[in-house]
């Protein structure tokens, strides 16, 4: 029986992308603008970097505010995504971006005891 090992997705911000080339990540940020072709988004991450996200399919709806993308790191500021979560405005307004960034930085800085 073949074991299907799923590599855990790491939550990253803009700066951490470089360290996870080719690996699955979750990245969240505020949408700066969407490309007219409908499959590309510019995202401002919580550490104030601009990251380009490329979707497989065009967006069904206009994206704005806080969005989280799951995907694979293609370059130091590009991610190809196959799934996204768009948060309602109540979330966006009350979300503490700085705190989130700190948490994500810590996550990446400290070795995770639950994943050896």
């Amino acid at each position, binding site marked *: 029986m073949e074991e299907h090992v799923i590599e855990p997705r790491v939550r990253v911000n803009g700066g951490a992308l470089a360290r996870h080339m080719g690996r699955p990540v979750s990245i969240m940020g505020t949408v700066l603008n969407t490309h007219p072709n409908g499959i590309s988004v510019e995202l401002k991450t919580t550490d104030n970097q601009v990251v380009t996200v490329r979707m497989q399919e065009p967006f069904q709806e206009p994206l704005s505010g806080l969005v989280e993308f799951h995907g694979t790191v293609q370059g130091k500021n590009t991610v190809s995504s196959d799934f996204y979560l768009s948060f309602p405005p109540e979330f966006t307004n*009350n979300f*503490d971006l700085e*705190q989130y960034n*700190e*948490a994500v930085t*810590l996550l990446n*800085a*400290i070795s995770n005891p639950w994943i050896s």
Partner: protein
Amino acid sequence: MSLKLTEGAISVILAGGNVDEPVVQILGHKKLAGTNTGSDRFRLLISDGRHLNGFAMLATQLNNQVTSGELCDFTVVQITRYITSMVANSEKGERRVMVILDVKILASGNEVGFKLGNPKPMTDGAEAEAVGPQQAVHNKTVQPKPTANRPASNVSVLSSPGGSVNTHPISSLSPYQNKWVIKARVTAKSPVRTWANARGEGKLFSMDLIDETGEIRATAFKEQCDKFFDMIEVNKVYLISRCVLKTANKKFTNIKNDYEMTFTSDTQVIPCNEDTAGIPTLTFDFTPISALAGLESNAIVDVIGVCKSSGEVQTLISRNTNKELKKREVMIVDQSNTGVTLTLWGTQAEDFEGSTNPVLAAKNVRINEYGGGKSVSLLQSSVLQINPDTPQAHKLRGWFDSVGATQEQENISGRTGVAGSGFSANWMTLKEAQENQLGCGDKPDYFTSVATVLIVRSENSLYKACPTEDCNKKVIDQNNGMYRCEKCNREYPNFKYRLLLSVSLGDFSGNQWATCFQDTAEILLGVKAQDLGDLFHDDRQFQEVFHKAAFKTYIFRLRAKMENYQEENRLKVTVTEARSLGTMQEHNARLITEIKEMAGIGNSVPYGN
């Protein structure tokens, strides 16, 4: 030279009556070595022509007249001022002693030269003792022994106000010397407290006394309690003497004195209306409200603040005494821009008028922590002044009127505040709380946890309670349509439903069973107890309520305490508050700090892990 002695004066005076300016003859005197104030006392043998009195004490301010010889034997004097007091005498019971305060010399002993009249000793015999060396019943007053010593000389006063007696400073009072008089103002007076225990019944009241040198607490029991309670008024000055001194029990008072005193059957208290300006009035040592949060529970402090808001009078039944108590909570604020809840009781609570935002100054209030913030509460020994005429009060008024009324103050009494320091104290994971053995000491421990409701037990979640407003005791179903409440000792045709939930809470570290009472239970279930009770007949809907409550996450304030239940010690955890998560910002910040500390990052000192 026809000198007429006031015959019969002595017997009148010694029987407790008054004679104005009696004329007597001095037939002898004896010096009694002084107390530690260094003054000698003279005891005179006087005659009114009919009787002798060997126990007339001379007030010390007249001592020089004896030593100079002006009051030598046979001198006839008119006693212009005197007082009498009762002295307990070990052999002969009580005796009245006269203290001569002022005299006018009518004729010197040298001029008179002989005993006038034929005075006889008073019939009780003791008077007969001449001013001789042996006094079987009267010890020398020098020995600094405690109250076993009952000396004859006694400056305490009863019948008439005598202002110029020697008074001692409160700071000099000690158990080793008990011939003193103090002139002090009553700054606080407690109500009469009665009790009944295995040893019988008792009653007492206590008071705080102050003079220029210090303060001291005094308590009167039983007969003295009855004798003095009505007479003693707060803020009045009294001359007090003959109390027993002992080491102070600091638990019951905040007064700064190593000693406290108890009234005895000899204690004398007399109002003093002269020369009272020197005696200070009530002094306060205020703690700013912002500092209260940092003090320990049960500490006694003085506070002052402007009443920003006040609650309604609430009636509650004391669990211990089953008596009805009235209380009112008011919020006071000060220039530290913090506010605290002050609890008033009884008539003080009922009469309080908060609408004018008065300045309240309270002495001897106790800090309480109630699983949330810190608040202060008036005690029996507390004193409350409304709008006192003091500089601090005026400054507060000025601050409040200009700034404080409109500004927001941080409320350290926590219950309503979002960032109430009380609610957010002591964050733990459930496992941490268990590992740290919270609740296993004498006092309950409080902690805060973010946890999820795993399951709410639906069996035995509701009970029928007494319909009376403040009574929540479970009623007994008489099965005849009536329900009996043991606490109120009454039967009712109705009841109210109340919730008592057993819930299992869990977080990543572990789980914990806890109890929720009515308020928190209603939050968790999202229904009122009464409505849930009405659903009882529809089991499906009833169970649905409990199902829906599961897997909701809250911030819980929990109270852990070891309770002794039928000889078994069990750790009981209660939910005192359940709050929705909100933004979690504070919690997140705390977690980040903890992580940094543990990992050794950032500006904190790394844990040794």
